[in-house]
């Protein structure tokens, strides 16, 4: 499918921009409607500390079986109206796509069995790895790494049976430039990485994945800028880079992640993309989000605010270890479902907007990354983004508008920033104002310091 650039936001009034409801809900075969009013839990899980190889693969499968079975049981007991389980495969399981396919089959069968016997509604999301990294990779769109990932998708699509399956991935296009940009807080390089490399890469890889989804009757969900903006967020949380930089990076990632939707993804977008609200504002497609429930996987300054416009509510990842209550994934699932019950109940009582306000004000006054996730801020910036055309102009707009919004928040006393952050905000605003009007001109400014980047690998026209 050819890319169709969104020319307006899906929402005009922020009042409509609320959790559980998406302009384009995704209807599953089992009756769940994601974005159709209710928020559902999405459980993420991973293996405990163990090595993964031919000898241990069956043990790994046993873990996954246990997790899905016990989660389905708990979903039934809690009378959960619908849920999804996501498996982000570990690299070895995409290097060997048969493993990815096998585990998808195992999980889908368990869900299907529970569905027919107990009447619960569950869906499965498979997220193979983007392994296109390292010296052996000479081209991003052909070769073993590309083939393995595509095979993992296609094979999974074929073995899902009657279970609703969703595709997702965390692609890494542009990361080789972006990693360095983060360490130096180099705004220009970050803009180039997002606008000139990550966006076109998203277009290519997602065109292929959407194609497979259509062929296998699978839901093309979405992609997160995990390798880009999440790296920034985690580094900021550790005080390694300024929070204002990570916040700006997140908004730029919104432009990148919405590209999946522009080439045919329907959502639900993937959980760890804290840029999800931008994806939803622009595309109207439902999104998965994570917040305080992801503290089992990483710390973050955005615990409540990600709930504001979520359609699935996730925990990012939890290891299958035993807790006092049971296995950690089930404990995590229970927390998620109770959160979702609260969201659903508030909405039923007509308090959705009030609850949303509590959620955003509780985080956004003390952290710039949370600030740029406020529904009003998201919608305002998104409207500015879609006024521009082309990846570079949109990323550039995202960069400038996010910094300006943070400045406005800070100047008005609504957002608290310390002096170090204010100092960096000033520097970044200056750098943003100096961005040239084309990606080609920006390339000339950054290319001397981009030795890890090979434009030919991406079929991009830039030359050293």
């Amino acid at each position, binding site marked *: 499918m050819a890319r169709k650039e969104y020319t307006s936001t899906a929402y005009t009034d922020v009042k409509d921009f609320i959790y559980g409801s998406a302009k384009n809900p995704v209807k599953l075969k089992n009756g769940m409607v994601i974005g159709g009013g209710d928020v559902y839990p999405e459980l993420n899980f991973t293996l405990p500390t163990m090595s993964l190889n031919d000898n241990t693969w069956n043990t790994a499968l046993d873990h996954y079986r246990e997790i899905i079975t016990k989660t389905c049981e708990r979903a039934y007991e809690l009378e959960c109206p619908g849920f999804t389980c996501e498996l982000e495969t*570990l*690299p070895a399981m995409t290097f060997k796509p048969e493993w990815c396919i096998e585990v998808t089959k195992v999980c889908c069968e368990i869900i299907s069995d529970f569905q027919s016997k107990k009447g619960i509604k569950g869906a499965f999301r498979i997220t193979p790895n983007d392994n296109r990294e390292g010296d052996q990779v000479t081209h991003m769109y052909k070769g073993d790494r590309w083939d393995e990932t595509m095979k993992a998708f296609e094979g999974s699509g074929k073995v899902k049976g009657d279970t609703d399956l969703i595709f997702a991935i965390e692609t890494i296009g542009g990361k080789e430039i972006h990693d360095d940009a983060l360490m*130096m*807080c180099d705004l220009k390089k970050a803009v180039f990485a997002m606008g000139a490399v990550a966006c076109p890469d998203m277009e290519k890889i997602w065109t292929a994945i959407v194609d497979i989804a259509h062929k296998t009757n699978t839901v093309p969900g979405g992609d997160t800028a995990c390798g880009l903006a999440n790296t920034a967020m985690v580094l900021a949380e550790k005080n390694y880079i300024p929070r204002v930089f990570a916040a700006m990076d997140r908004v730029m990632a919104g432009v990148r992640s919405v590209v999946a939707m522009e080439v045919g993804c329907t959502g639900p977008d993937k959980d760890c993309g804290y840029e999800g609200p931008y994806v939803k504002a622009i595309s109207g497609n439902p999104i998965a989000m994570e917040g305080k429930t992801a503290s089992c996987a990483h710390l973050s300054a955005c615990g409540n605010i990600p709930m504001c416009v979520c359609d699935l509510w996730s925990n990012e990842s939890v290891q299958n270890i035993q807790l006092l209550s049971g296995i950690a994934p089930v404990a995590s699932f229970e927390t998620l479902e109770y959160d979702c019950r609260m969201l659903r109940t508030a909405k039923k009582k007509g308090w959705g907007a009030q609850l949303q306000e509590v959620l955003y004000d509780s985080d956004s006054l003390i952290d710039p990354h949370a600030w740029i996730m406020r529904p009003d801020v998201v919608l305002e910036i998104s409207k500015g983004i879609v006024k521009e055309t082309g990846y570079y102009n949109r990323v550039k707009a995202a960069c400038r508008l996010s910094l300006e919004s943070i400045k406005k928040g800070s100047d008005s006393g609504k957002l608290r920033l310390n002096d170090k952050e204010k100092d*960096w905000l000033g520097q970044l605003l200056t750098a943003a104002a100096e961005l040239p009007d084309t990606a080609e001109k920006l390339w000339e400014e950054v290319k001397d310091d981009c030795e890890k980047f090979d434009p030919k690998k991406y079929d991009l026209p830039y030359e050293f």
Partner: protein
Amino acid sequence: MSVFAEISEQIQNGKVKGVKELVQKAIDEKVNAKDILEKGLLAGMDVIGEKFRKNEVFVPQVLLAARAMNAGTALLKPLLTQAGVKASGKVAIGTVKGDLHDIGKNLVKLMMEGKGLEVFDLGANVDPEKYIETAKNENCNIIAMSALLTTTMSVMPEVVEAAKKAGIRDKVKIMIGGAPITQTYCDQIGADYFTPDAASAADLAAKVCGA
């Protein structure tokens, strides 16, 4: 201000040009090369490292300082070699096989260099043999491994074993780190040291090397 203090200040401000000029001036004035290194360059890195630890500066400032220091050290290198001054210690560092997370490892490397250690960066996805080979060939005091995945940390004991097999276990200390790693794990697999962050990793490495 002494030339040492001036160099240190330029390092802290990440001024490559300034550092180069001052180091050259000191060399021309026949100031002892080891003193320039220790009282000027490394002293400056110490200050910035301390500020980083106290959350007073961000990584980019540390990186700029490190760049400036490298520029200064490059000028001093021939003189230091002539005078028989060696790096205070050598470290082979890398992210283990199967793991591509390298940001934490890069920070550890950077902070170690800031302590005057010579660091051989093996990159990410490093085969166990590669650590051993480098440690052997370069006479490293330390092998430092990073792992971020719960499924790749189990490569660490393989490296410990490989060091034993290669007969270098008594010559090389093994240091491990990364988000899922703990002191308990370190003890369990028979590695020597674990620290939770880059600054403490560099401090400890310097101590181990007797710097």
